[in-house]
């Protein structure tokens, strides 16, 4: 390694760094912008009670006991109420794969932060409804 080849390497590195200054940043301004979430995104769940048959396969499949089922709470013919505990959920997707009646799905809502810990225990009403649309909520509207 001669002196001049080392100098050449130094200038190559400086060239790379210098050319980087004029490129666009890669990051997104998160609260104002967001990446596009793909179809299969495993966000919070949504429970469709019309299709539910209270088979409790999702409860069995859950590796961290995050789902609780209440079979006495009936709105339709043979459904059940689901209580989701998002302090425990690891979003593995096993419950959705276990559901044979298409009654449980993931949504694209991935930012679940809440001011209080208790708010992360979703009761049946919250797990049935989507309080905000993941794509409608985002965009440059907030800027």
């Amino acid at each position: 390694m001669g002196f001049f080849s080392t100098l050449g390497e130094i200038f190559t590195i400086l060239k790379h760094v210098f050319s980087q200054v004029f490129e666009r940043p890669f990051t997104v301004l998160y609260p104002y912008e967001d990446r596009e979430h793909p179809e299969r995104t495993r966000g919070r769940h949504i429970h469709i009670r019309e299709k539910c048959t209270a088979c409790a396969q999702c409860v069995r499949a859950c590796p961290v006991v995050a789902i609780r089922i209440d079979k006495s709470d009936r709105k339709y013919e043979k459904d059940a109420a689901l209580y989701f505990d998002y302090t425990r959920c690891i979003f593995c997707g096993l419950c959705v794969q276990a559901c044979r009646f298409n009654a449980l799905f993931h949504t694209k809502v991935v930012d679940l932060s809440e001011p209080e810990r208790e708010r992360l225990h979703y009761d049946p009403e919250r797990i049935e409804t989507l309080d905000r649309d993941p794509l409608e909520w985002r965009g440059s509207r907030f800027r």
Partner: protein
Amino acid sequence: MMQVNWFQILIDWVYGLIFWVYDVVNWIVGIILWVYNWVWGVIFWIWDLVFLNLDFLIKAILFPGLIFVVLALIYTVWFTRKMWGRIQMRRGPFHMGKFGGLQLFADAIKLISKEVIIPDGSRRWMYRILPSILLVIVLLPFAFIPWDATWYIADLSVSLVLVFAFLAAVPILALLIGWISGSKYSLIGGFRAANNQFAAEIPIIMSSVGPALLAGSLSLMAISGAQSSVWYVFLLPINFVTFLVSSVVAVGTFPFDAPVADSEIIFGWRTELSGVYFTLTYFAEFAEQMLYSALMVVLFFGGASGLPFLPGFVNFIIKFLIVMFFFIIVTSSFYRLRQDQITRYCWKYLLPLSMLNIILVLFGLAYIDGLAALVMGG
């Protein structure tokens, strides 16, 4: 027999009383006048002081002085962070103000308002006093920077030497802070800071000899004034490179940041500093970086000369930002060197190169006709 003239005594007594009252009144009036004159004197003295030295005061406090330097410091930190963000494909600060311009004020307020945790093993009063001394010592040499032909604070015939004299105290303070914080990491970092200065001080002073020889003066004002026809960076390019590299070593930023290497010794001599003391040392590092950039502009880029239609200090600041940009590019391109490697390469490459430059300058001044007239004529 004695004739007692009671009437005469009464008259005398009354006279005496009147004179006494008169004297008391005089005395009180005298006190009031004295206080009045004293107050007026002080006011006039301040008035005279301010108005006879108004020029100097405005310079020292407002424009090239304290407030300007602190604001420039804050925006230099902002510029550095923004540039680092760009180089690392991030955005840098963007929340506070336009383009994140107020972010540093928010950071400073946050850091100052944080709790100060002083370790048990430290010397408390030194822990409290040393960071402020550090910042003051780093800010003082800004007085000698000639921002313009008119806008400068002090112009001494030896200001170049004086700047380096101030900066020589910085690693001693770093070593002291590391020593008194009562942590092994701080101690190691302090010794590494001293090692850095040991490596860099001689090359940096050697490479500032070249411009001083060409200009024939040790005053920064004269050096920058002597470059109106040709900038010394074109005459002494190698000297500029040695000055740049050894100033990066002296500051102790990224390629040579062994004193504060965060992956080896947590934050070096600054590990145990917290709250406002950390803020002071953090700003002191950037102030040192700024100072070296300004010195580079003065020594190699012709100070205030440049575009003729702009005021001199605007030229200076533009050049200062460009040099700062070079600084940032260099600091974000290389891996950290070990402290023994820093010493070895400073003494093995930078010192001979800067010495070679002095010899070249001497021969050039002696044997090239017209060079002295070109560079000194101004």
